[in-house]
């Protein structure tokens, strides 16, 4: 491993002091003089025509300054991607319970709430569509009957409620199944999941007298919010400034426009700043969670354990709008394995439920649960050790990944081996205890990234990027700059930015900040260093390749005392021919860099209650290089605990008649607490990536993928029952132990219909 001065060290976060003292400012902490409070009215119906909305009583309430409904916005549909399938506020129809139909600005929150209660909406009910599988069938009522006319609709298969199909194929999969020694097929179902960030959606909007709109936002994607806001308000992009405030968690749900348009329009109407903060129920019922996913998976395997064919069908319920696509899941139907023949399909179906958003690599956790449970089941049927079976089929350097890229060097095998050693696998555990593993894969995220670094006269540097800090990314970026420039961490000032100030960059999500944004910072630091060296060469009268940059100075390698500090160089640069020193960089994409993680769970199953206790959780991930081991471990631990919640207790439930969220609170949507967890064991493997900054890989997504399968596999090991549906609740485990069918419906009929529609033989 290369030696580093800043990287691979547990430096404190750059924002730690503000956060432990309560000084860090989140969007909800913004208080402006004369600020009004906004509240929204959510639809009481899941699918209905809006006959009328009477706001007169609300408007007459003292303290109310403005009331808006859907028709106050320009009649413009927008969407999260190409497909424009929704209005920012319901106009003529509502598509889910909770969908905003009106908003109020009042002098205080309680008045706004009272006003909301005075708004009278008359609905004419339409038949709701709740079950995504039923929605695929011919004759199902349609959520968006006009879908074909929506801008960006590019789908050709008939099928009322399907809005997207993603596919990937290789080889002759049908022939490979015919030739295989064994074929196994299974259906898995994962539950509705909420991102569970602690900071509810919040924003403050203020329109200046000159018409310029400022948004103090809780967002991962300030430029995306700016663009979508410009579109739904039909205003010039340049008239909007988004200031991303400290972010209290987003996990994908804050990548896009949420409700910023409501206070924005209310601010335009009233001339006052307007604040909107969701309450927790609104977070559950109005923001995009993830809906249950059905994954059908079929594998052809030879007697020696070689996998020869894979078919995977995913049915995603996207709710009322395509808030986030089924895209992430599709690429992962193979898992971390080399499979020569495959057919992978992801269908996205509309239903009358709250629309979905992104969540920490949406869809991959669901798919990993299916693939890694299925792998275990096959290993047991073949009489192979589950870990050996995985090793045998694991994807290697030089193989072609599902996305068509060549697989570069990586630490997959090292991760599996480390897990094996840490736990002493294979191992026998006492009665009622079991161990299970899961192998997870992901890729380092890319996308447009920019960075600029200027050198100050005291030798510090100022780092400017457009990316919002999530998961300590500012600290990582500062570390990369410090390492590149040979200065200490505390010599890097990370600028607070907004969309006016900082250059465009992609959103903070999909594990792209350290890999891609970090790369931009590394490149900007190189640019800065080159400029420092050139200036020093000029002033010291030596060629620049005789110089080195370390410990805050540029010095002559053969004669270190002959040196200029960065501060001196910065001061000199002001009057130099080339002017003050600023380095910058910009990039669009980086090559494919996979990320692998092996995980293992030990559980104890209570046979009387079915309750599963997690007694040990081990994960090992190839991180390339640990920019900051403490931060990397923190990411892995936090991610794993989200996955553990998904495995055991979290379950967004929907009313089967109306699609309403049945448990919209932290009291009933059960995220893990400290008490529910063993100390997590986190191991790092370091096989540097070819292109990431200093060899780093993305880290944040894979830890959350493994727990559902690892724990399901451990339950099987402990008590011999296989649970195919999440969460792995006491109730499900007990039913399985008692032989009461807990199995989920095989989706054969639906599959045949989908295949026929595509012209495949069934």
């Amino acid at each position: 491993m290369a030696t580093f001065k800043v990287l691979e060290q547990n430096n404190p976060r750059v924002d730690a002091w503000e956060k432990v003292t309560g000084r860090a400012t989140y969007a909800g902490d913004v208080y402006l003089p004369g600020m009004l409070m906004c509240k929204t009215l959510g639809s009481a119906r899941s699918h209905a025509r809006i006959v009328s909305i009477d706001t007169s009583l609300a408007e007459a309430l003292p303290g109310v300054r403005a009331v808006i409904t859907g028709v106050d916005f320009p009649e413009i549909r927008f969407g999260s991607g190409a497909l424009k399938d929704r209005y920012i506020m319901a106009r003529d129809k509502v598509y889910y319970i909770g969908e905003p139909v009106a908003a109020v600005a009042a002098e205080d929150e309680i008045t706004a709430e009272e006003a909301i209660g005075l708004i009278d909406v008359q609905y004419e009910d339409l038949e709701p569509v709740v079950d995504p599988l039923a929605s695929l069938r011919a004759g199902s009522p349609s959520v968006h009957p006009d879908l074909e006319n929506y801008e960006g609709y590019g789908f050709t298969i008939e099928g009322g409620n399907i809005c997207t199909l993603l596919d990937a194929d290789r080889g002759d999969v049908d022939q490979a199944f015919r030739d295989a020694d064994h074929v196994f097929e299974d259906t898995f179902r994962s539950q509705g999941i909420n991102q569970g960030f602690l900071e509810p959606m919040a924003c403050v909007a203020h329109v200046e007298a000159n018409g310029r709109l400022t948004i103090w936002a809780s967002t991962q994607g300030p430029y995306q919010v700016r663009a979508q806001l410009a579109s739904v308000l039909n205003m010039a992009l340049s008239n909007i400034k988004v200031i991303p405030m400290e972010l209290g968690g987003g996990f994908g749900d804050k990548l896009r426009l949420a409700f910023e348009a409501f206070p924005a329009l209310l601010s335009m109407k009233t001339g006052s700043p307007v604040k909107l903060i969701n309450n927790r129920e609104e977070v559950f019922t109005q923001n995009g969670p993830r809906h249950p996913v059905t994954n059908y998976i079929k594998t052809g395997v030879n007697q020696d354990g070689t996998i020869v064919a894979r078919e995977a069908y995913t049915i995603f319920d996207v709710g009322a709008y395509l808030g986030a696509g089924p895209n992430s899941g599709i690429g992962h139907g193979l898992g971390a394995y080399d499979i020569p023949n495959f057919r992978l399909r992801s269908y996205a179906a509309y239903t009358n439920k709250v629309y979905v958003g992104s969540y920490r690599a949406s869809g991959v956790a669901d798919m990993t649960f299916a693939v890694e449970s299925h792998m275990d089941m096959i290993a047991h049927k073949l009489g192979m050790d589950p870990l050996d079976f995985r090793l045998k089929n694991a994807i290697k350097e030089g193989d072609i990944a599902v996305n068509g890229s060549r697989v570069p060097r990586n630490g997959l095998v090292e991760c599996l081996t480390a897990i094996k050693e840490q736990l002493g696998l294979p191992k026998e555990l006492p009665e009622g205890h079991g161990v299970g593993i899961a192998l997870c894969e992901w890729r380092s995220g890319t996308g447009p990234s920019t960075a600029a670094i200027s050198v100050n006269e005291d030798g510090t540097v100022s780092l400017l990027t457009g990316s919002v800090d999530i998961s300590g990314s500012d600290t990582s970026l500062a570390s990369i700059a410090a390492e590149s420039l040979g200065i200490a961490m505390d010599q890097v000032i990370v600028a607070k930015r907004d969309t006016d100030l900082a250059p465009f960059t992609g959103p903070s999500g999909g594990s792209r900040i350290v890999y891609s944004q970090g790369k931009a910072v590394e490149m900007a630091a190189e640019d800065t260093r080159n400029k420092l060296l050139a200036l020093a060469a000029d002033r010291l009268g030596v060629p620049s390749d005789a110089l080195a940059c370390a410990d805050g100075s540029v010095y002559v390698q053969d004669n270190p005392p002959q040196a200029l500090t960065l501060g001196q160089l910065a001061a000199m640069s002001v009057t130099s021919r080339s002017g003050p020193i600023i380095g910058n960089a910009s990039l669009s994409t980086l090559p494919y860099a996979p990320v692998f993680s092996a995980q293992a769970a030990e559980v104890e199953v209570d046979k009387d209650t079915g309750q599963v206790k997690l007694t040990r959780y081990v994960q090992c991930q190839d991180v390339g290089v640990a920019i900051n081991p403490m931060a990397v471990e923190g990411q892995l631990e936090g991610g794993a605990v989200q996955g553990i919640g998904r495995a055991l207790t979290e379950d967004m439930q929907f009313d089967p008649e109306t699609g309403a969220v049945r448990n919209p609170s932290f009291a009933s949507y059960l995220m893990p607490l400290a008490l529910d967890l063993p100390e997590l064991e986190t191991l790092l493997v370091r096989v540097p990536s070819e292109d990431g900054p200093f060899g780093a890989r993305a880290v944040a997504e894979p830890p959350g993928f493994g727990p559902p399968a690892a724990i399901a596999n451990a339950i099987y090991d402990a008590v011999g029952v296989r649970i195919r549906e999440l969460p792995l609740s006491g109730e499900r485990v007990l039913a399985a132990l008692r032989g009461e069918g807990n199995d989920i419906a095989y989706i054969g009929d639906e599959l045949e219909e989908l295949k026929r529609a595509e012209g495949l033989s069934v």
Partner: protein
Amino acid sequence: MNKQPLTMTVNGHERQILVAPYYSLLDTLRDELQLTGTKKGCDEGDCGACTVILNGKAVTSCLVLAMSARGAEVTTVEGLATPDALHPVQQAFIERGGLQCGYCTPGLIMAAVGLLEENPQPSAEEVKFAIGGNLCRCTGYTKVVEAILLAADRMASLG
């Protein structure tokens, strides 16, 4: 239902304010006293982000009616550090990586302070029980527990 006068001691200073009778202690701290370090994650008592010390006990301030805190002593996250030094719990959270997005952090720190006032030498299990009312979605708690144990050790050795 006009605002009513309320006197309480917040972070060592006596404060006299006017408060709406239906206001929670949390809203009072944030809206009336501009102490925004205390966070609102749910307003239902379920997340612990709003934890403050009220008359020596850690409580969720969203479940306290402000008017019922008449004459009370309240400590918020803003009241822990001295001008010279952070509170040992704050310091340990920084050193051990006990925070990420930071939204749960003031509440977790106050829960830890409440614990250490009653039980200066807790076991890891006791720490987990003491923060059983605090949700954190980012850290996975392992480093939070480590930080609190480190703070306890340091405070014990300081006496």
